[in-house]
């Protein structure tokens, strides 16, 4: 057990160190969501108020968008964890990890936790910048947002790791990313409410883990949402444990062939 924790910790440390070295990437990943908030949020807010009708009469678009954009950045940051798995294969570090006398579950969990930490930190930075743009959001909800960010991050780092372990090339990962990230993002209620989607879209949104993260954050920050907060958190707990388990299962079977 002690060994397990030590392994998780050292792999976490490695991901954090790498993150701190890549300063330009960090800045880019914070600026981009802020631009979304400003251009998309402010640009759309007029239209949105007339469109949204009964459900969201009381809230502006910008506060509505803030949890969406925060979760978007957590999602992107986390999913990109898969790329680093491919990089590690390409640059050989994967072998160093595979030949080490440690539990593979621990190494992959440490990695997922490390990448989750960095994307949650990014999420927090964006949230604090966003709260300046949309002062009406309820800052007392931040602990709940934090919990849902962590669960979303764990789900999608693990998801990225699963895909990254199966792919042999960066291009392959990018292709999957293109096919998956847009639907996951747009069918999560991040930019427009799930309730007003066509039925088929709503059906997909309901099996999308990001939907629950966005909803939980939105309830915490603005007080309105689709599900109950408890239901959201339970769904996130379930999906993150499923993804973490699958990623461990996949990584246990990883070879260098």
């Amino acid at each position, binding site marked *: 057990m002690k*060994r397990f924790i*030590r*392994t998780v*910790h*050292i792999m976490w*440390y*490695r991901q954090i*160190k*790498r993150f701190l*070295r*890549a300063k330009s990437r960090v800045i880019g990943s914070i600026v981009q969501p802020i631009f979304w908030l400003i251009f998309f949020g402010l640009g759309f807010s007029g239209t949105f108020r007339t469109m949204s009708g009964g459900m969201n009469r009381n809230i502006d678009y910008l506060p509505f968008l803030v949890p969406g954009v925060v979760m978007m950045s957590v999602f992107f940051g986390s999913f990109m964890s898969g790329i680093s798995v491919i990089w590690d294969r390409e*640059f*050989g*570090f*994967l*072998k*160093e*990890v*595979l*030949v*080490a*006398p*440690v539990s593979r579950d621990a*190494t992959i969990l440490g990695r997922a936790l490390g990448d989750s930490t960095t994307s949650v930190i990014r999420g927090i930075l964006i949230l604090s910048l966003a709260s300046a743009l949309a002062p009406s959001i309820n800052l007392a909800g931040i602990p709940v947002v934090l919990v849902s960010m962590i669960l979303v991050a764990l789900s999608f780092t693990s998801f990225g790791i699963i895909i990254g372990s199966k792919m042999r090339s960066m291009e392959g990962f990018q292709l999957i990313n293109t096919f998956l990230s847009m639907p996951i993002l747009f069918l999560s209620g991040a930019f427009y409410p799930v309730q007003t989607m066509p039925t088929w879209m709503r059906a997909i949104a309901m099996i999308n883990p990001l939907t629950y993260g966005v909803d939980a954050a939105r309830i915490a920050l603005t007080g309105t949402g689709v599900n109950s907060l408890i239901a959201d958190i339970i769904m996130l707990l379930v999906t993150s444990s499923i993804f973490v388990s699958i990623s461990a299962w996949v990584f246990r079977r990883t*070879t*260098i*062939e």
Partner: protein
Amino acid sequence: MDVIESEGLTKRFGDVLAVDNVTFRVREGEIFGFLGPNGAGKTTTINMLITLMRPTEGSARVAGYDIIKEPDKVRKKIGVVFQDPTLDRRLTGWENLYIHGRLYGISSRELKLRIKELFEFVELKGWENKIVQYYSGGMMRRLEIARALLYNPEILFLDEPTLGLDPQSRAKVWDYIREIKSEEGMTIFLTTHYMEEAEKLCDRVAIIDYGRIIALGTVEELKSKVGNEIIYLNTTLDGQEKIFIERLRSLDSIRDLKVLKDGIISLSVNNAPETIPKVLQEAQRLEVEIREVRYLRPSLEDVFLQLTGKGLRDEEATFFDHVRMRRIRMRRGGRR
């Protein structure tokens, strides 16, 4: 005691038989070399022994544990320096070693001391806090050797430890390897396609080609297989050759004769200076033109050549070019 016991180890990649029924034993405390050309199956053999690839057939025990059934136990006993770098290039040299040490369960305090020692050992002092990306190839290699030594493994695997290094760095790495052997008594399994490396470092050598071990023994044993000395004849091919070869075969002093490519004939003999005049006499009698005669004390290169009929290193260069290169090296004050 044997610390590596391989039994019929075989690896197939689709149609490619990369390692073909390889059986050998490595004794405790020795430097055991796998010598073979590119694509011979050296790396694949290592990958199976270090539990990163599953053999298609056969098995092996490393440090007493079965590589298929007890990979976790094997991993606890070994250190590996892979053929290609496996460092995290975005981190510093120190961080790379620190992460490795923690993965291998060394306590933080002890680790810091060890890292300091090892940076000195591989002469990278002062580079601890530089990002690995800015290291040269030779420095990365040395850092990887340091990393593999952090945790005093029972068996150290080195896959082409001096590949692509300049002569100075190569000599340094050889020194480290000798030092590790003499000071720690570690068993070392190394692969190489430099015969010089195998000759200088290894207690015993297995020559591997097309996935198969074609000879195994101490360097001296292997050399004695090809006779004490070898004469190379560069002849023209003009039809007379067959009779000539038969005549040579009947000479008592010639232990073995092989026709290599481009009209080159190799003769293994006990005493070249005595045999060469006899050979030339025969050639003159049968009007075979001999363009060039050279003789060498055998090296592993010759062993390889005798066994496979081709050169070990660059198959394109004709063999005489190769011999010439080596003579030049000798004249420059090499070892022989």
